[in-house]
């Protein structure tokens, strides 16, 4: 790293331990090689890459090892956009970060997710899948705690399931599988727990807990970070100097910390073009409808959770093929089927008639006519009976969808006049989605319904809320993305292909805030892979 002007000073504490703010002296300055701000998936992945090296790494974590309401309060903010969970609920502020409420689902982005598509505004990354692919398997091993099989071929998983004939029209849908470590599994552990011992035994990595970053201080020219100002919960002020800084505090907080760091750079660090906090997005997810089936076995198998010998889990989803999305100018998206139990009713009797006959190897007379009874009776009864009968064998499926949010300049994280207990401006979120995002979800639901009919596995009822009350109908994945987008140049983003903030010599960003686009998959595997790639880059600078 050239031009930062730092001279090395010995660390005041022996590196290689967890250090609480209470053990630090007031006005102390900590020196290190790399300072990682944030101890979530991205920060931990980078730190872990430096285990056993000669590079001194300090990680700053605002919280402790456990949830603490006082610390969590720092994350409060407002929202003037689409309905969104409270900002102190949608993320977590303690060791492990938001992985502490992570569901653990992983699947790599596709090659198309990185490409520019003329029908998708602001699409395209400056890196492509081959740039990140070498890091996916290592990221997978971290995210899956060493379990699972790094395998994404459809036929491999179909063979595991013994499914031969449940294949959608590949011109329209691709059957994909994703994996996870589910919390219900005995082998599940939190991300933080998984790495805690290794960090604790490290000789070159120090984790500072309960230290809050007040501001990133820059050189006079504003082209490098010189130190970070820190304050403990009890009000103790400290500073940390490093050769390289990595901001890894999540998609909302990364933007906030850049914007509040405005003593030298008035518009905020990396914000010369006003893009910090812009393009905020999350995955709209929602129940698009319900499926009643006449041919259940392959669906049961493909869309249920299955456990491998190593304790990992896998299940299926359907995604429109790239050709289909291109033809119909859609964003990326996927559909999953969640089992829903059968209510007692005349309609359910008809459905049972179908299903039980099939199980006996019989075929009910006029099968297609039975569908009518099921359909006409379904609406009033499903929801009422759902919870009452939740332990029964499912006979219906909820059609669950997740859509790629189209990058939207007007959707943003900004600062408010309200301040947190350390005097730092709180976050104002204004989440917006484009019409294309809504159109994609509607089109996905209708296309899936038609494919279900073509496959002769049942009929789908589209939820009227998709058309009539879309904004209140969907939920979110709690995936905070794209607020410090990666781009070819600073007119279009905040970080370059190496995740370095444009115009800054020594400031890097890790996490899903650097995503140029969001894809339709869960972000954690990709953000960890990007973090590992960044770690490799930093190793080259710290030899």
């Amino acid at each position, binding site marked *: 790293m050239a031009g930062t002007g730092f001279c090395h000073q010995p660390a005041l504490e022996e590196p290689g331990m967890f250090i609480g703010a209470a053990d630090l002296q007031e006005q102390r300055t900590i020196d290190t090689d790399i300072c990682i701000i944030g101890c979530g998936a991205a920060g931990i992945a980078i730190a872990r890459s430096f285990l056993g090296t000669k590079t001194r790494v300090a990680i700053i974590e605002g919280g402790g090892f456990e949830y603490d309401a006082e610390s969590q309060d720092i994350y409060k903010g407002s929202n003037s956009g689409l309905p969104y969970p409270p900002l102190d609920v949608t993320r977590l502020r303690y060791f492990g970060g938001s992985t502490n409420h992570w569901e653990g689902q992983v699947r790599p982005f596709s090659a198309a997710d990185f490409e520019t598509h003329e029908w998708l505004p602001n699409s395209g990354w400056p890196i492509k899948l081959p740039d990140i692919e070498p890091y996916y398997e290592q990221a997978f091993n971290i995210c899956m705690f060493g379990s699972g099989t790094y395998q994404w071929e459809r036929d491999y998983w179909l063979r595991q399931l013994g499914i031969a004939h449940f294949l959608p029209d590949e011109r329209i849908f691709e059957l994909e599988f994703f994996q996870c470590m589910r919390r219900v599994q005995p082998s599940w552990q939190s991300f933080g727990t998984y790495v805690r011992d290794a960090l604790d035994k490290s000789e070159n990595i120090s984790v500072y807990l309960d230290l809050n970053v007040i501001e990133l201080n820059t050189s006079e020219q504003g082209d490098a970070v010189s130190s970070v100002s820190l304050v403990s919960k009890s009000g103790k002020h400290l500073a940390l100097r490093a050769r390289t800084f990595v901001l890894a505090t999540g998609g909302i907080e990364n933007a906030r910390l850049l914007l509040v760091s405005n003593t030298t750079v008035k518009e905020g660090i990396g914000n010369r073009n006003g893009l910090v906090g812009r393009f905020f997005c999350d995955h709209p997810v929602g129940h698009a409808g319900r499926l009643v089936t006449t041919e259940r076995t392959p669906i049961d198998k493909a869309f249920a959770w299955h456990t491998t010998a190593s304790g990992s889990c896998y299940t299926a989803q359907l995604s429109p093929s790239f050709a289909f999305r291109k033809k119909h100018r859609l964003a990326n998206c996927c559909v999953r089927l969640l089992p829903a139990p059968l209510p007692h009713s005349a309609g359910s009797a008809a459905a049972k008639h179908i299903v039980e006959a099939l199980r006996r*190897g019989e075929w009910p007379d006029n099968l*297609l006519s039975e569908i009518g009874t099921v359909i006409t009776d379904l609406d009033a009864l499903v929801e009422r009976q759902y919870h009452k009968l939740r332990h029964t064998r499912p006979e219906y499926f909820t059609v669950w969808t997740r859509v790629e949010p189209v990058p939207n300049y007007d959707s943003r994280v900004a600062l408010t006049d309200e301040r947190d207990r350390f005097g730092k401006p709180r976050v104002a979120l204004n989440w917006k989605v484009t019409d294309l995002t809504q159109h994609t979800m509607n089109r996905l639901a209708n296309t899936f319904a038609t494919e279900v009919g073509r496959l002769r596995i049942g009929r789908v009822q589209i939820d009227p809320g998709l058309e009539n009350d879309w904004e209140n109908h969907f939920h979110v994945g709690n995936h905070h993305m794209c607020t410090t987008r990666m781009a070819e140049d600073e007119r279009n983003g905040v970080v370059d292909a190496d995740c370095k903030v444009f115009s800054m010599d020594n400031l890097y960003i890790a996490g899903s805030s650097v995503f140029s686009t969001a894809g339709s998959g869960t972000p954690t595997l990709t953000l960890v892979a990007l973090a590992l790639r960044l770690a490799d880059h930093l190793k080259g600078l710290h030899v």
Partner: protein
Amino acid sequence: MKHLTRRQALVYLGGIAAAGFTPAATVQAAPSQTVVTAAMKLFARPETRASAALIGQTYLRSHPCENNTETLIRALDFMAGYDLEQGDTAVLARLYAQRISQDFESADVVNVDGWILSKTEARVFGLLALQQTV
């Protein structure tokens, strides 16, 4: 209840062509009531027939231009070639299933109260609805 193996069941729904037969009366030439009677054979159980008619009413409300027997019969050409008076109901059911599949294949579908149905099945339901109101 007819006993079928799983493979037979798939063939049944798959609409694999049955042995050829010579139609005695075509749907276009047949009296309306003959067609309606044939369509009702698809719904052996009274409750399924009633359910189908209920859906049919909804379909016809949203497609008023099809709210008459003649128009619906003209549109239900899947019965063409089927012996409306002497034909085996299983053959008719197969033709019905085959056409429904074709409808979904070509996205010739209709939204009835949110349900995405084949245009053909919605029209058959409509025919039953009109029959009930006669």
